[in-house]
């Protein structure tokens, strides 16, 4: 797994108000920042950007129930062996105080019943090496980490 003392090679903090537009922009900024440190073609940067976008969408849609103007805070650490993002919001907790174990199952030939949503957590779980959720002082604290390099 991770080395014992990975060197921090870059970090950034962002704060935005909840809206689908602002979190879409934030996910791109997170990707751009990580890309600027480790290389934008690094596939784990692409994965992290998608997962950050999914997690932020969940915050706007579920934690804040679509209410705009609520605070969202993001902290990014680029370490020598991994990318780590912490997302904090003051919205509703995740049901059961845990990351949902969603499996989206469908029959590809059954057009009418194809799922149009529910993929967010599945994409996060599939791509991230670490997904950690904590309810702390009335805030949701979600940590995502992805190893990169050899």
């Amino acid at each position: 797994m991770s080395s014992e003392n990975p060197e921090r090679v870059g970090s950034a903090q962002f704060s935005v108000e909840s809206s689908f537009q602002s979190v879409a922009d934030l996910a791109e900024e997170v990707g751009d920042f990580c890309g600027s440190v480790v290389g934008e073609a690094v596939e784990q940067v692409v994965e992290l950007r998608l997962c950050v976008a999914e997690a932020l969408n969940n915050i706007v849609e579920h934690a804040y129930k679509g209410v705009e103007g609520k605070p969202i805070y993001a902290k990014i650490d680029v370490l020598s062996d991994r990318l780590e993002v912490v997302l904090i919001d003051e919205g509703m907790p995740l049901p059961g105080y845990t990351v949902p174990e969603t499996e989206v199952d469908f029959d590809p030939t059954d057009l009418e019943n194809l799922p149009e949503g529910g993929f967010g957590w599945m994409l996060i779980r599939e791509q991230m090496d670490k997904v950690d959720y904590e309810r702390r002082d009335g805030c949701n604290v979600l940590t995502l980490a992805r190893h990169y390099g050899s």
Partner: protein
Amino acid sequence: MRLTTEQDNGIDVLSVDAPRIDSACAEALRDAARAEMAHGDLWLIDLSKVDFMDSSGIGTMVGLLKWMGHDRRMELCGLNPPVLQVFKLTRLDTVFTIHADVAAGHAAHHHGVAKAGR
């Protein structure tokens, strides 16, 4: 986001001119695409200008496919690697017909027409 359409040899092409299809524009895309694709039995969706798609974008694509129904076809063209990756991770690549680019989409259907005409 800008949508453009063109018709060539009985095949309609809808090009999505947007760097991202995400939660910020998914609904607008759905409404605009439905308006553009109200008629026509076969639509190729050119996504070659799209560099990023999240699950709301992919949900929009599924919604459009369902809206087209069984009698009309919608196929995807020119998926960039990060976009194709989302289709694979969600297994929705098994649902959509995906062409390397619009030219390949045209070729697939013109070949089919030629075969059927024999």
